[in-house]
Structure formats: structure tokens, C-alpha cells
């Protein structure tokens, strides 16, 4: 066991836990933001540098501070370690720089992008970035690519987090896409725009932290804050069948995997559930999905939804605002 202090809060965790996991165990107040790390994907993390933290005390035996900021998703805790995240001005400054780097080539097309409202980069830029860009250079641009008839790839928005590559490696049995070229020229692509037709290929949409991989069946249908996420399940022989249905009125616009409080998918779902089952009759509805009170999705009078068996879509009265407990 190792005792680690993050932003003045102490927790005892098992050896081999990373600083990021320990911080998440303490709570969302001290957890560093992440873009490339995904808890359900092995060997993810270490690319984006958003989770940089300052280690002010290495361990009980060797109390020297670490000379540079470290990526918390790839650094294991030591007994007696002291970590500064939001309390460290060095980290705040470095994170601002990281966001600036991530946004160097990222287009500011949030009004068009389907991910807007649930985009991690949007949140990150809002919380840690500066409101102004300093570069004078043109952003790199790519043509839109269709990966099959269900997935749209906007390479211009990609921040090269490698999450989709890891999904293809670990969840599906055959990967046909990857990162081509090097450095500034690197891009997610398939050879000769190969069609991704694996049963679990749709999960690349869910793991993409930005709007680079989006659902073509949901393309421009609605903004996320006009839809209401609802937990639902069905008996599926390929996956767990536990999903979020995104309702607009009585129509299911989109099906995604259930995401936890860190925005990471809990269980990967198959393409049949994601793309083909878009009727309420296909699903057993469990109740409203938990949405952070500060999320723009809850701007849509979301709390009027009832729990469990009481839930019927006809009960949703959009104009009666009741005081419910926060999600």
C-alpha cells in the first residue's frame, strides 16, 4: 500500500496505481483532466500531456521533488508522495500551454461540430485555455473521410490521442485503420479508405474525445443539448446491451455506450445496438441518465424525467420545472 497526497488530500492506494487513478479515487476536485487516457483501454495515455502534475515530494524514502512535471496517467504512486495538481501554479501554466498546442490545428467549428456540448477539448479549453490564439499560421486541413457508411472522420479535428486505434486493437479482432505519417503530418486513416466493418467498430465514435469521429446517422440531426439521454438495455448476443438512448421528443436520434463521470465508456456496445435499434420498442428503459448539473445537456429541463418504472415518455412536461436533487 502507498500513501499519496494530492492537492492536500491523502489517500491510501495499492502499489502500482497511477497518480491519475489515485486522484480519481479522491474525487473530481483533484482529478487532472485527460484527453488520451481511457480507463477501459490498455496502454492508453501518455500522448496528450493534459494530465501533467507536479510531484513536490518523490516518496518517503527519497523526498526530493521530481525535476519536471510528470504525466499522471503514466506515473505510479510511491509511498509518501506529494502531488500538486490545481494547487500548483506550474501545472496551471503548463496545462494552458498544452491546450494551446492541442488547439494549434484544431478548427474552431464548434457551431457545426456534432460533438459540441460533450466535447472534452471544449471543456478543457474553457477551463484551462486562453481565449486567444497566438499563431499566425494556417491550420492544417484534410478532406472529410467516410469510414464505412456509418462513421465520419473529420481529420482536421483530430488531436491524435490514439484512443480509436487502441479500440480497434483491443476490442475488435482486425484493425484496418491507424496513424499514417509522422510528426506534424500524422493522421488517422485507413489504407485506400478501407471500410471498417467490424461489429464493434462504432466504439471509435464513443472514445473519440473530440468530434473527429462522429456518427453519420446522427450527423446534423440535433445539437446534444436538445436531446435527452436515457439509460436503456436490451438482450444482445454480441455485447452487454447497456446503452444511453438520446431522445428528441419521442424519437431516438442516437444510441451511445454509457459513459461514466469521466466521460469514458463503461461497456463497449456492438454496431447492431448502436446503429440499427432506434425505436423505443427495441429497448427496456431504465430511467434518465445521470447528467452533470453544470453540463449544457441539463439545460434542457432534464430533471423533469422520472426514474425507473414510473418513466413514460408521455410524462415529460417540458415546461414544469420541479426542484429535483442534483444528478
Amino acid at each position, binding site marked *: 500500500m502507498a500513501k499519496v497526497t494530492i492537492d492536500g488530500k491523502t489517500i491510501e492506494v495499492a502499489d502500482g496505481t497511477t497518480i491519475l487513478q489515485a486522484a480519481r479515487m479522491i474525487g473530481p476536485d483533484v482529478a487532472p483532466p485527460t484527453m488520451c487516457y481511457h480507463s477501459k483501454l490498455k496502454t492508453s495515455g501518455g500522448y496528450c500531456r493534459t494530465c501533467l502534475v507536479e510531484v513536490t515530494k518523490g516518496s518517503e524514502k527519497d523526498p526530493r521533488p521530481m525535476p519536471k512535471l510528470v504525466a499522471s496517467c503514466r506515473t505510479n504512486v510511491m509511498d509518501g508522495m506529494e502531488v500538486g495538481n490545481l494547487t500548483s501554479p506550474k501545472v496551471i501554466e503548463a496545462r494552458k500551454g498544452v491546450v494551446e498546442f492541442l488547439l494549434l490545428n484544431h478548427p474552431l*467549428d*464548434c*457551431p*457545426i461540430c456534432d460533438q*459540441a456540448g460533450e466535447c472534452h477539448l471544449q471543456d478543457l479549453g474553457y477551463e484551462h485555455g486562453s*481565449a*486567444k490564439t497566438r499563431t499566425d499560421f494556417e491550420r492544417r486541413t484534410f478532406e472529410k473521410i467516410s469510414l464505412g457508411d456509418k462513421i465520419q472522420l473529420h481529420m482536421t479535428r483530430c488531436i491524435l490521442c490514439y484512443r480509436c486505434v487502441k479500440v480497434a486493437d483491443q476490442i475488435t479482432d482486425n484493425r484496418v485503420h491507424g496513424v499514417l505519417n509522422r510528426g506534424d503530418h500524422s493522421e488517422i486513416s485507413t489504407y485506400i479508405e478501407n471500410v471498417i466493418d467490424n461489429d464493434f467498430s462504432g466504439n471509435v465514435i464513443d472514445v473519440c474525445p473530440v468530434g473527429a469521429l462522429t456518427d453519420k446517422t446522427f*450527423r*446534423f*440531426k*440535433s*445539437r446534444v*443539448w*436538445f436531446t435527452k439521454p436515457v439509460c436503456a438495455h436490451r438482450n444482445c448476443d454480441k455485447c452487454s446491451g447497456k446503452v444511453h438512448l438520446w431522445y428528441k421528443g419521442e424519437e431516438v436520434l442516437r444510441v451511445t455506450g454509457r459513459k461514466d463521470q469521466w466521460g469514458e465508456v463503461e461497456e463497449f456496445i456492438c454496431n447492431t445496438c448502436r446503429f440499427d435499434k432506434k425505436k423505443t420498442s427495441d429497448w427496456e428503459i431504465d430511467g434518465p441518465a445521470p447528467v452533470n448539473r453544470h453540463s*449544457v445537456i441539463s*439545460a*434542457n429541463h432534464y430533471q423533469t424525467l422520472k426514474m425507473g418504472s414510473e418513466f413514460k415518455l408521455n410524462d415529460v412536461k*417540458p415546461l414544469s420545472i420541479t426542484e429535483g436533487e442534483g444528478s
Partner: protein
Amino acid sequence: MQLTNRSKVVVKKEMTFVEKLYLPAIFSGLSITIKHLFKKKATLRYPEVTREFAPVYRGMHVLKRDEQGRENCTACGLCAVACPAEAITMDAAERNKGEENLYREEKYAAKYEINMLRCIYCGLCEEACPKDAIYLTDRIVHSEYTRGKFVFGKDVLVEKVDERIDITKRKKTYKID
């Protein structure tokens, strides 16, 4: 509690002889009336003459086009989520090849409706718009015979290419440090 010094205490007392004649009171009243005849009129002969509006007046909305006549609105939905009266609804569509001169970006509003009976003219939609697309103008929403006609669609809201609506007085520029 006394709010102003203009209140008079009403006292019931016998009138004097001059007061009983009533003539001084009549003439002082008439003189006030005649004075008003020569004063500047407070009313205007609308609609021949219209009053000048304050630059911040918030009247009927306009959906702007850019210099090349393309619609600015990309149906991002920020005006609708900002609207406290929930008056705005929209449907988005993807721009096809060959429509580049109609819409500025790859997504556009296929349907854009404002319910003018719901609208409270607060101007938050204008504040929320990231694309300089929606502005409130000094135009007045005219009365109609049925409620349904107050749901204004794109045919009313989008400005015509050849008759642009001037919003320079309302345009705000923000400076980011």
C-alpha cells in the same frame, strides 16, 4: 410615510367671497388649456412620421447574410438554448455541392422558426450567436389575425439579398485580452 412634498392636506373651510365667484379659478384653468395649444405636440402623425428609435431598441429579428449574400446561420442552436422563452426552434441540414453561394458553412438551418408570441425581445439570442447571424432590429412586428402567423420562418426572418437590414448600430465588438 411622506414620499414627496407635493401632497396637500385637505381642509374643509368656508370659501372667501373671491373664491365664491369662481371666475379667477375658471380663468386660470383656461389659461393652462390655451398654453397647451401653442406647445410642441407630444404625439406624432404615425405612420407618415415615425419616431426615431434608440440604438439599443429591440424589435423584430433578422437573420443576416454576409457580404457575398450567403446565410450566416449554421444552426448551432446556441440562440435556442439561450432563449428564456423557448421561442426558437430549428432544424439543421448539410450543405450540398453547388450551394456554396447560399450558405456560408457546411451546415445550415433548413428550418428556423421564432414564435413571436413567445419572444420577450430580451436579445439573448443575439448575444449568444457566435456567427453574427441573428440581430434584433428596430422593425416592429405587425399584428396578425391568427396566432399561427406569428410563428416567423426563414422566409420572413432572413434578409433579402438586395435589401439588407442595417444593424451597425447594434453590432458590438468584444475585445479579448
